[in-house]
């Protein structure tokens, strides 16, 4: 009844991992918050280097060129990502391993 090995539907066999196919509203809100926090870190690094008239590193330049900020991203890209095996080529971003600690912002054009 209780304890770590209690009988529950996901544990008693079969493929019953109830991971929802889309994010809930609070999950989406926290995702946006995390995106903004990363934007803020990059902006801080960028402005600190420019104030010292130091060259920006490869990483910073590339991020600024390629990565959209949270405001510029489409909702589709914030909460879903490309996957060639999925119907309509999109899956929820929470299917990505360690999705709260990695940056997954851009998807193939047209998908």
């Amino acid at each position, binding site marked *: 009844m209780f304890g770590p090995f209690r009988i529950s539907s996901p544990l008693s066999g079969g493929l019953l991992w109830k991971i929802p196919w889309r994010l809930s509203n609070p999950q989406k809100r926290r995702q946006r918050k995390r995106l903004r*926090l990363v934007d803020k870190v990059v902006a801080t690094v960028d402005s600190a280097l420019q104030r010292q008239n130091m060259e920006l590193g490869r990483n910073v330049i590339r*991020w600024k060129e390629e990565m959209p900020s949270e405001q510029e991203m489409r909702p589709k890209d914030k909460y879903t990502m490309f996957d060639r095996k999925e119907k309509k080529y999109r899956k929820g971003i929470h299917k990505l391993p360690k999705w*709260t600690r990695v940056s997954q912002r851009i998807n193939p054009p047209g998908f």
Partner: protein
Amino acid sequence: MPYFKITLIRSSIGLPRKTQGVLNALGLRKRMATVFKPVNPSTAGQIMKIKELVAVSEVEQALTDAEMRAMRKPDPGYYIEKPVVG
């Protein structure tokens, strides 16, 4: 001389060895640990590798651990009077 104040907000458990290596190199061993590193391109590159895990701000002075601890210490709420001589 400006410094980056870097605080580890998210743990690196389960992340690639390279990411954990960057954190070790910066001296961030556990969550909420803070280090001060001079503003230069190489530090910036290190921060970019772990940008999802840390909070960064630019400060003028680097503080030691003891100084940061003293800043966190609350006011004791009393003071000890000195005996008046004479």
